[in-house]
């Protein structure tokens, strides 16, 4: 029998990781190949907001529904949590930049490079967060090599 709540974090991280990376690929494609297509810009913003929500839920379930480890596992957990918070910060900034472009400049295509920079940081951070999290889960707790 499962402790259902303990599986919320491992379940929800799929959305955070996959949507941030796929959203970034979609935004990159939009910026370089469909620059003037407003629909593509709308969909990339939709994916950005969805991935931001995914990361937020993953961080919240991580804080609320995972236990505290001890010893070396605790070190991995601390690093994983710090990186996760940084990822959430970066993706939130990306969302805010895009919302400012829509609300303040009334132009969904505004601030493209600033968005891309923070989006890229988010992708790098989520990959590193996932890597440390994977090492914690598979390498230490499950001892899979």
């Amino acid at each position, binding site marked *: *029998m*499962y*402790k259902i709540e*303990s*599986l919320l974090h*491992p*379940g929800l*991280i*799929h*959305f955070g*990781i*996959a*949507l941030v*990376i*796929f959203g970034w690929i*979609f935004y990159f494609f939009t910026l370089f190949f469909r620059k003037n297509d407003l*629909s*593509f810009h709308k*969909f990339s913003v939709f994916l950005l907001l*969805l991935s931001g929500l*995914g990361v937020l839920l993953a961080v919240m379930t991580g804080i609320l529904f995972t236990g505290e480890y001890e*010893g*070396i596992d*605790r*070190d*991995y957990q601390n*690093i994983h949590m710090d990186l996760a918070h940084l990822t959430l910060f970066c993706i939130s900034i990306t969302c805010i930049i895009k919302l400012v472009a829509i609300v303040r400049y009334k132009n969904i295509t505004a601030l493209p490079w600033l968005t891309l920079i923070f989006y890229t940081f988010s992708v790098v951070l989520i990959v590193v967060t*996932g*890597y*440390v999290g*994977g*090492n914690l889960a*598979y*390498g230490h*707790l*499950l*001892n*899979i*090599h």
Partner: protein
Amino acid sequence: MLHGKLILKFTEAYIHPSVVHFPIALILTGFLIYCIYLFRKRDSRKFALFAYYVLVFAAITAFAASFTGVYYTKEDYADDAMRILIDHRFWAMCTTLMICIAAIIKIFGYLTTFKNVQSYNWPVFVFYSLAVICVIMTASSGTLLTFGYLKNATFIP
């Protein structure tokens, strides 16, 4: 202060767990996007194109997840876990098959109707729905295998 030297690894065994994020998230999110496209009343040619891209990407990653699952995961489990591994592989194969059929129908429709991504909507919907059911079953058995049997990390004794 650290309790010891931190060693980060990336072995073959980590490839499959890294790739599975994509089909799980993209099939479920893509199905949601596809439903929004199908059931909204406004003209949605652009939305159809968006749903089409997500579907194709989900199919590619489902294939990649199956491939890495077959070639980069170990198979020497105990009997109980072996049964779950067989279930997991069966459902993974079904997921890949269903999502690939959905993507192939959509691509076929796109190529044979002068790039109209709104063709064959309902057959694709049927296979997409089946892929959603299969991916949930695959993920459930995968979770049971990983967290339940390899170490009782999340099990109530």
